[in-house]
């Protein structure tokens, strides 16, 4: 008997526990490259969009990426069409994907965040909303996701605007990520996802200057996985809400590690750059592990 990998996440049934990390897979571009084969074998059980903002953004000047040992630094700068452009142009295409859609949103204040969440709440194509809180609040100047008080206040402001699940994406660049997770839960978040990238820089030996154009960026890839596992464990010990665990997941064994650390879902990010079908491979490897484990220890 094949072990079922179906998992429930915030009331959404997913075929397996493997989704993508926001900003690491552009399903619209991938369909242009690979055609409908992408839809026939879609690599994730839910699709998380690249982060959108209220107004369009061009993104950061090059150089945007820098390879590091077992990972990479990126500073992309959230290029996107803005809420209006996203809803008009991208949403219809993302609605055609064979899996539930989670839209990642970022704003620079509660009011702006509120306008985005309210707009997304009206769209039936959107199954859940991920809040990217690694941004400054224009009023306080504080990074929302680095302050428990800012996080709880933001969630309290947004919670009444939608019944759709709200997932808070946690930054790893704080001393105590669990305190932010607790604040998110207290404010009414349905789930948390972690980790976002770690602040990082590298010097180009050819120039003596930072390899990333804007000086620094975020580190991802297998290099960060042990940090992610530690933070997922700490958050899992502190909150009841489900966790999306990510950070260097490259294999079924890595995904199993995230789940063992306390995550309900594992998200694949940088590995999709190297292997576009990484999500399919990881879900299959995970299923194989479940199936072997279930044969070894039959459940009653």
């Amino acid at each position, binding site marked *: 008997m094949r072990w079922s990998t179906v998992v429930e996440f915030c009331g959404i049934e997913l075929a397996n526990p493997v989704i993508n990390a926001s900003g690491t897979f552009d399903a619209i571009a991938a369909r242009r490259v690979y055609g409908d084969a992408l839809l026939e074998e879609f690599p994730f059980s839910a699709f998380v969009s690249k982060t959108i903002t209220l107004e369009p953004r061009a993104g950061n000047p090059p150089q945007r990426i820098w390879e590091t040992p077992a990972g990479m630094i990126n500073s992309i700068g959230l290029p996107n069409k803005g809420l209006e452009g996203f809803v008009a142009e991208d949403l219809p295409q993302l609605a055609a994907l064979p899996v539930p859609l989670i839209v990642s949103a970022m704003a620079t204040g509660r009011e702006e965040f509120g306008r985005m969440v309210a707009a997304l709440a009206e769209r039936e194509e959107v199954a859940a909303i991920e809040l990217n809180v690694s941004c400054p609040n224009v009023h306080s100047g504080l990074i929302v996701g680095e302050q428990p008080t800012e996080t709880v206040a933001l969630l309290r402001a947004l919670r009444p605007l939608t019944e759709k699940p709200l997932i808070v994406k946690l930054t790893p660049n704080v001393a105590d990520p669990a305190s932010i997770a607790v604040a998110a839960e207290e404010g009414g978040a349905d789930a948390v996802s972690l980790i976002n990238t770690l602040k990082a820089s590298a010097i180009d030996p050819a120039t003596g200057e930072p390899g990333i154009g804007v000086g620094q960026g975020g580190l991802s890839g297998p290099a960060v996985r042990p940090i992610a596992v530690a933070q997922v464990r700490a958050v899992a010990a502190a909150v009841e809400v489900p966790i999306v665990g990510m950070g260097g997941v490259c294999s079924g064994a890595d995904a199993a590690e995230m789940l063992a650390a306390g995550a309900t879902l594992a998200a694949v990010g940088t590995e999709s750059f190297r292997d*576009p079908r990484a999500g399919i491979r990881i879900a299959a490897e995970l299923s194989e592990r479940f199936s072997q484990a279930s044969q070894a220890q039959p459940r009653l």
Partner: protein
Amino acid sequence: MPEAAFAPWGRRLCEVVDSRPSGGYRIFSLLDPEGPEPLPGQFYMLATERGWEGNGGRPFLPRAFSVAEADPAAGGIRLDFLIEGIGPGTERLCALDVGERVWVNGPLGNSFSPPAELAPGAAGAILVGGGIGIAPLALLRRRFAAGNVPTRVLLGFRDAAHSGGLDDLFRCCEVGLASDDGHLGQRGYVTDLLAAMLAGDDAGSAAVYACGPPPMLDAVALLCADRAVACELALESPMACGFGACFGCAVPKPGGGYLRLCVDGPVLRGDAVVHGG
């Protein structure tokens, strides 16, 4: 040229069927059992099956390479790549032995356009290549030859030790040559040869196709703009994925904003690129 076919969904392992030195660089050949046949200008993301992440965790990301030759062969399509070992990824690829396997994702990106599509009066082509950038022009020259497009080739190299691919990829055709030290062809830049050619009376009947280092591409675009000659440039950029996922290969657009070179290029019209940046 036909529209680019979809790439097979995902990466696949292809066997190395040949690897040989070429003028200081290396050319290796892969047998791609799946296809489709690439168009000139298209590229592949490559990573070796073994020994990637071998040395201190690098290379980690696959590397983008234009395809230099593509020929139907027994069991698939033979793909040739021109490589200069300048970092952990290219050095690993240069060390490939026949029989090893390489992860291949592609063909990716767009391709060069026929002259008539670039400019109504253009019937012929001038190909301008610099250094390792001659690779995609080799395939383009062969496709133009097969399509009876009159084609002239101008290539520039630093010196004879950095002239990889010249003899292998451009044999059986006449090539205008320039090198920094004068040991290959005329002393100077390949753009000097282009300037002289564009000063001729028939410049307006040709379109220019260029690939090489950024200063060379800037100079080519300026020369072409001066003479109102249409041109297409194949650009290079650091790239993590090659299929639009990472947004790493940003290229500034003249009106502001950025293109993703992997899905909007790598071939761009000369006036679609900000020069001298």
